[in-house]
């Protein structure tokens, strides 16, 4: 079954240049319905009021980090099953373990390429 590329994707990063890069890379792999949030709180508000099929979030943000956002998403009855990919420069074992324990769907380390992004999205959405 093909991936529904018309789904809404929320990308979260406090660095606007990175949002722009991810948006463009998503466009290259044919995800055109992309919304942005620049911190965890804004992301959570958008997730609760919108209809998203995937979250792609940075970790290192203030005041709410990507890990805290993930924990909030998993604790929310409506959002707990939301596919959630962490895209971050944090690449220590303890980071990956903490993210996995918090329920991350997949983990991409920066810098990354479009192929990695496509591959992880396909895996998360169950079409690998």
């Amino acid at each position: 079954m093909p991936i529904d590329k018309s789904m809404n994707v929320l990308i979260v990063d406090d660095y606007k240049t990175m949002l722009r890069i991810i948006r463009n890379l998503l466009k290259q792999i044919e995800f055109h319905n992309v919304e942005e949030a620049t911190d965890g709180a804004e992301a959570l508000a958008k997730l609760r009021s919108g209809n998203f099929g995937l979250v792609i979030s940075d970790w290192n943000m203030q005041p709410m980090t990507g890990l805290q956002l993930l924990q909030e998403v998993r604790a929310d009855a409506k959002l707990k099953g939301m596919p959630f990919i962490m895209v971050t420069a944090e690449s220590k074992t303890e980071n990956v373990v903490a993210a996995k324990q918090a329920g991350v769907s997949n983990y991409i380390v920066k810098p990354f390429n479009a192929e990695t992004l496509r591959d992880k999205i396909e895996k998360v959405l169950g079409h690998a």
Partner: protein
Amino acid sequence: MHETGAAHRDRASDPFSPELRERLAELQARKPQAEPEMVAEVVRAVLTTMSGDLNPKEVSLLAEVEELGRTIATAKQEIAALKVDDITDSHIPFATDELDAIVQHTASATHSILESCETLDAVAESLQGADATKLQDATTKIYEACSFQDITGQRITKVVATLKTIEVKVAHIVATFGEHAAPRPATTPAGDAGASGEADLLNGPQLPHHAMDQSDIDKLLASFE
């Protein structure tokens, strides 16, 4: 003038100088109950302690302690002479400003590159076939490469935090050892999240020889399944 052999023998057999013997006599006159032998023993013990009978190890240790004392005194003078205000008011702010400027300039350049790339993307959409694909592949590579800006920004933020830490530590050293330096209040370096346990996890990009790459992370994630 050389003393005679008899005088030398007398001094060798009598450890007390005439002056000391005289003072002992005075003391006995004032305190007749004090036994001269007892006083002599105390004086002998004190003289022995004062003058030595140190073994070579103790002499060496004493020399080292003296050297250490001199080193500490020199270090204190140098630290006191250190112009800490130059470091905290000039050198470190200059370095952090320069680093901030690097981030701003690279951000501005990245913005321009992305804008041009988006224009090329729009052109690619108007093309057909191999040319469109080739152009799109090229713009994808440019987008991927532009993520350097995020990584370098995070690395520079780490360097700035390190400089701030050095600034605080230098100020503490001067406050502790520099006789003329006023103590400075401790400050938390910028970027030090500090407040939560998660702060320990936020280390930013790792140097290549310390970092896990995507395949390492994939293996680690797979180990949970």
